[in-house]
């Protein structure tokens, strides 16, 4: 059980770290959104799963509450994350920020 928790925490930390690196490496707002919202979501899923397993392993009222709360947090993370990043991207494009080094921009052609 402990091994599983450590493996999940390691995967979570790796992908969250990659998300942070992506923020520094990528050139513009859209590509940074890829790193900052997607990699960190995947990382957070595994971090939260580690908490859930820890909660169930601990057992009892306290552990169960911890696990259920973590699961609810996961559900809302999965619901709000795409909505938020979509709003950021659409706002940026409407505000006139063009994708950097883009090979094609169909949304620009529509206007």
């Amino acid at each position, binding site marked *: 059980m402990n091994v599983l928790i450590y493996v999940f925490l390691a995967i979570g930390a790796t*992908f969250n770290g*990659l998300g942070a*690196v*992506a923020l520094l*490496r*990528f050139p*513009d707002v*859209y*590509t940074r*959104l*890829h*790193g900052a919202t*997607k*990699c960190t*979501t*995947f990382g957070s899923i595994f971090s939260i799963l580690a908490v859930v397993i820890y909660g169930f392993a601990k057992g009892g009222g306290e552990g169960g509450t911890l696990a259920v709360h973590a699961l*609810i947090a996961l559900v809302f993370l*999965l619901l709000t*994350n*795409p*909505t938020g*990043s*979509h709003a950021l*991207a*659409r706002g940026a*494009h409407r505000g006139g920020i063009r*994708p*950097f*080094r*883009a*090979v*094609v*921009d*169909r*949304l*620009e052609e*529509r206007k």
Partner: protein
Amino acid sequence: MCKAAEWALTAAFSLAIYLLLVLWTGSFGLWSPAEFIAGLVLAALAGLVAGRLLWERGGFRMLQPHRWLLFLFYILGPFFWAMAKANLDVAYRVITGRIRPGIVRFNPGLQTDLGRTLLANSITLTPGTLTVDVDDATGDFYVHWINVTAEDPKPEQVCGAFPTWARRIAE
């Protein structure tokens, strides 16, 4: 669907979620009386505000239980697998910096708001693709793609089997 039914369904859903969130708060069964009354008032308000929007175009299809099972299976199976693969791909691009970004357009042919929302959220949650805009009239998706392989792609090239699943679940 008539207005009263829309309102009642939305209120019932809000109340159920609220009661789940405040479980084990008191002596009135599982809930304290104050929480219960607050929940009733909030659910009635939520029904008034969101009832029309929620069921406007095809949302009532999700009342069929087999669609919930399909949705759960989709999230845990094909979607999670695609997400894991795409994450490794983006991790590779973060480290090497080999990107070819662009906004592409494709039409998955989905008719309902629910199906489009499901597909747009799936696309956005998958690393490497990000829905920037959806044309309400034609159903065109404008997707920011981190590694453009075709300037006029088919839906399968951008997001694999997601449109098929969105149609199966929501239409």
